[in-house]
């Protein structure tokens, strides 16, 4: 079903291409993205800098190839953390209901009402901005959506008779929550997790743009952030990393959309 959607396939092809460049690129094309290779702000097609260089004379193309690792790692790891926290809190709230649900939902709302970018900035500045703290900060501020979605699915699915049937055969709470309800709640969560990867990549770019990324790791966000003052005179230093972020998030979103269509039984029947 997924394979039949041309949009989703485009997204998948795009993402695989980006992954290949980011994972294998640095192995094939060995260079230091922080090396000065050309005159500062050389335009594209200059000697030694195919896509131009930034204000410190660093090669933009090398930055693109090496920066993908950090960006994609942060995206995937932060999305994973956010999904794990979100599913755990949402599942417990939805399954137990009552006071537990009330308490956990107020806690979730506390995170929801805080402007997440500001909150992440505070977290990153409190600790030193390394890849790990950036990942944790993004994960910690972006779980409420997943928690609410998981809670809603649990509230719905726990009403079904097959959950009562588990009670009737003497199943313990852990089995009912994680082996019976969760697998049935997964389709929307898979979609949400995919979209969370895209959101986390944008988040990382935003933090790096504001100068709160890991300064020792080349990333697309860092490239945009460090060259932002020269945006009007030297477009290439920000446009190419920006394009990479755009394409990556687009690819992930297309896959998310495709998964949504493929996992949604109502749409499945219509086709």
């Amino acid at each position, binding site marked *: 079903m997924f394979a039949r959607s041309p949009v989703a396939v485009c997204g998948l092809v795009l993402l695989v291409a980006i992954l290949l460049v980011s994972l294998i690129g640095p192995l094939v094309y060995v260079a230091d993205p922080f090396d000065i290779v050309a005159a500062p702000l050389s335009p594209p097609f200059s000697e030694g800098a195919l896509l131009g260089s930034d204000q410190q004379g660093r090669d933009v193309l090398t930055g693109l190839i090496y920066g993908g690792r950090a960006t994609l790692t942060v995206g995937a790891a932060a999305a994973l953390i956010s999904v794990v926290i979100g599913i755990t809190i949402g599942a417990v709230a939805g399954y137990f209901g009552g006071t537990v649900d009330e308490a956990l939902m107020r806690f979730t709302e506390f995170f929801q009402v805080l402007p997440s970018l500001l909150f992440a900035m505070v977290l990153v500045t409190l600790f030193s901005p390394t890849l790990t703290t950036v990942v944790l900060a993004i994960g910690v501020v972006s779980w409420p959506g997943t928690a609410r979605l998981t809670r809603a699915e649990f509230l719905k699915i726990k009403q*079904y008779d*097959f959950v*009562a*049937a588990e009670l*009737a*055969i*003497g199943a*313990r709470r852990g089995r009912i929550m994680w082996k*019976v309800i969760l697998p049935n709640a997964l389709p929307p969560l898979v979609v949400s997790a995919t979209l969370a990867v895209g959101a986390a990549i944008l988040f990382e770019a935003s933090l790096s743009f504001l100068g709160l990324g890991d300064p020792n790791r080349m990333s697309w966000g860092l490239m945009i952030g460090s060259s932002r003052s020269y945006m009007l005179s030297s477009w290439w230093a920000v446009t190419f990393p920006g394009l990479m972020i755009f394409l990556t998030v687009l690819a992930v979103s297309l896959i998310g959309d495709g998964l949504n269509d493929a996992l949604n039984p109502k749409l499945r029947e219509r086709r």
Partner: protein
Amino acid sequence: MSAPLVSVRDLKVHFARPNLNPLKPRETVRAVDGVSFDVEKGTTLGIVGESGSGKTTVARGLLRLVPVTSGRIAIGGTDVTALGGEEMRRMRRRMQYVFQDPYSSLNPRVRAGAIVRSPLDVLGIGTPAEREARVAELFAAVGLRPESQGLFPHQFSGGQRQRINIARALAPAPDLLVCDEPVSALDVAIRAQILNLLQQLKRRLGITYVFISHDMAVVKHVADEVAVMYLGQIVERAPRTAFFARPLHPYSVALMSAVPTVRGGRERANRRIRLTGDPPSPIDPPPGCRFAARCPAAEPACRQTMPELRELVPGQWVRCHRVEVVGEVIRRPLG
């Protein structure tokens, strides 16, 4: 006769409604309000009543699938309302439930074989090899092909799904099977097959049934004893033959008269007792007889005091002021 397998005394299941106004007292829905009955081993108790009468809640309360507010439920002499989590889990071996809806009661992501095996896995019965053998035996017992073990629920028809449901309930070899309208979601031909299957299991394995239904014809077919529920209470309890020969409570009479028949024609149709209106709300039931507002035979006194469930004839219990025994003759207000 030995002690009954199931003995229920004054069972109450009340639900608190969500309270939006903290100044008002919380309203409670009295879904089941003082139900008592016994079921002898190897017999079937049929519980009938209209939608909202509390039949399903009684069934779920029996197996503690809903929290029991008060009362005593003894299964084979053990009071299950007093059991803690782990003891209750062990008790579930002896009592199982067949659900009404064969569609929502099977986990759509689990294969049929694994569904039937799940009680054995969860309760830790037998070795893996023994469990496999037991599943194969159960598939044969309920008339499913052995190779269908690998299929998912949506690949079965409604009748086959109900067979899976029954096989799952039979897996731990329970003494008591509570069936909540197991055939009401099935079409007529399949209905007969499933009812015959349940009858056959009863004869072969000596299973005791509590059988919930709103269909008088089904109850007549399967039950040894009949209990009629109205608004959370039993209004009449009697052996099947006595009940179907001569229902005593006006509500039972009305229910029986509502059964569609081919014979009898217009004359019979004209004599039919038509109940108007709906049952009162279980949130704040009226003080007197709960059926009084709809009862064609109600007198002012009926609205004042709640009638007790009285044993008028040995084995036949009625909750109605107007049914009387005069000498050897029973006078019933309707019918």
